[in-house]
């Protein structure tokens, strides 16, 4: 799936407006892995949210897989995220009262997939990240690295075309971070997924196909 971003602006607040993005043009090719780096407050997370249709731009357009996100209604946008986008967050966002398996199956539950079917698919997804033996555990009882692998399984369970990762190793020590990252790249390459990864870690960014740097809401050429 290709992403085309054209002249993207995003301003927060009305009384004291803050320009998070000041005209971004960007293209991510199908199957490409793009790293977006920048300091905190540079606007890189805002860019990711806009590309994933979690937020609406003040002006400019985002086109994903040939569809203009700003032309889609709440339902269509939600369906697109549910069917095509996998999310990996720095803070995992696993539901504490749910088991690992239920957490992984959550996007399928949202999609109205029946229980047996979604549990079967979630089990397969968990095997792929090497956590089959933790299926029955409470998600929040796992270690940080394991939790992030559950998040990866949750992103994979929908067979996505697209992965959006926001500081995937931000809460992990370097060793576990490395394990998680290799797993991500391994899967991305194997499945030929398009991936957009926001990070401030230049080592991590260097392992992507391409890196763009965001500063003060604009893309500056890579150093």
């Amino acid at each position, binding site marked *: 799936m290709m992403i085309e971003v054209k002249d993207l602006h995003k301003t927060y607040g009305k009384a004291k407006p803050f320009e998070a993005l000041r005209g971004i043009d960007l293209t991510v090719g199908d199957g490409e892995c793009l790293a977006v780096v920048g300091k905190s407050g540079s606007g890189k*997370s805002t860019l990711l*949210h806009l590309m*994933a249709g*979690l*937020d609406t731009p003040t002006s400019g357009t985002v086109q994903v897989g040939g569809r203009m996100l700003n032309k889609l209604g*709440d*339902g269509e946008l*939600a*369906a*697109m*995220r*549910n*069917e095509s986008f996998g*999310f990996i*967050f720095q803070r995992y*966002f696993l*539901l504490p*009262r*749910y088991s690992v398996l239920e957490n992984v199956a*959550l*996007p399928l*539950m*949202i*999609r*109205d997939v*029946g*229980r047996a079917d979604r549990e079967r698919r979630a089990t397969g997804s968990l095997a792929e990240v090497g956590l089959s033996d933790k299926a029955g555990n409470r998600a929040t009882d796992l270690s940080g690295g394991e939790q992030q692998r559950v998040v990866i399984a*949750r992103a994979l369970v929908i067979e996505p075309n697209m992965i959006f990762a926001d500081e995937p190793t931000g809460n992990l020590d370097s060793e576990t971070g490395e394990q998680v990252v290799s797993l991500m790249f391994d899967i991305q390459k194997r499945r030929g997924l398009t991936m957009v990864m926001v990070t401030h870690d230049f080592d991590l960014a260097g392992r992507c196909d391409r890196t763009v740097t965001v500063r003060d809401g604009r893309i500056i050429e890579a150093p």
Partner: protein
Amino acid sequence: MRSVDYLRTAESNLSRSRLRTALVILAIVIGTFTLSMTTEFTEGVRQFIHVQARAFAQPDTLNVYLKNGDTGRRLRASAVEEYNPLRAAVAARDVTYMTPQDIERIRKTPNVSKAYPRYRVQPDYVRAGSSKKYLISVDSFYPNTSISLAAGKLPEAEDGKAMLLPYQYLAPLGFSKATDAVGQKVTLHFTQAPQSLSGLSPSALANMPARDVEYIISGVLIDTLQPQNAYLSYREVTDLQQFQFGTIDRFSLVFVFTPQLSKPDLRALKAALDNEGYGVFAYADAIDRFDRIINVVRIALNGLAIIVLLVAMIGIVNIMLISVAERTQEIGLLKALGLRRRGVFSVFMYEALVIGLWGGLLGVGLAVGFGLILNPVLGRTLLKGLEGVKLLSFPPGAMVGIFLLAVLVSLVAGTMPALRASRLDPVDALRRE
């Protein structure tokens, strides 16, 4: 998401903070319980009054009197009339009676099925065997009379030897319970009335012809708050009238049977009789008056109960708003993973639904259980002997209605928090630390 998943999610979320959920449900339970109890109580009182009234009179009957007659003045209760010197003078001078001609006229009125003179014979006393003698009043039962009985059965209308005994006379006449009295004999003593009161002396009164008449107790009337009349067949009362007063052509009341009438029909019948110069006192009017009072009480009590439900509703809104605030991240995640606004709305509405279902079920269930336990206790104590009376009565329709009301209240309460949740910005929610 599928309904079953929404339900499971709701249950899981509600069990996250058990105490809080229990307290919200308790609020609904208290409201529903209060509303059920006030409904049970007023319905019970209404039925109680209807059963009591049936011991004195019966549905679909009217007492018809001459508007200008003696009884007219006594029975007239509902209307304020203008002063009429002529009438006042007539009223003071003597008493106007109804005659068989009146019966004929009343019978011809549409919707009158039967009309009988209502005689007022007065026995001196009643006794059973060698019991003491007691004062008693008698009334007539007519063909198709229906009266609430504690024991025995209604006799044939033409059975001159049958009598229905008021419950209050059981013990004085030496019967230990109602069923013992059925089939037993009692004696009424009648004395002929003097034709004129002038020059009447006690010795003359003692020399008036008198007779003892023996009756068989065919049934015992239910216990009532006020003692009522004994009933004899209208044929027997007619004979007694002849004996006691020397004529059966003078009476002050006519007892009228009608088919079951709608309120407009009853009003039309009363208007027609009114045109002919008759006043009407209907059983339905008396019951109506009671029902109106009970309805006022019902509305007042239910109003209070509904205030309790409203307070519970505010509690639900409050708690659910807190819940939405606490679960901001979860809502953001669900949205990011593709749950639409409508879906987030439903997540919270299902929680409200579960609260309403449990609250309604427990509240109504508790009230019904309370009634089932309390009714027999009341029957043995406070309402002892008042047969067929349940002070707490639960009409199933009303109970189902109250249950649905609890669910509705809960759903209405859930709407605002659910809307707020559905409008949360996922980015805001995910960013929040």
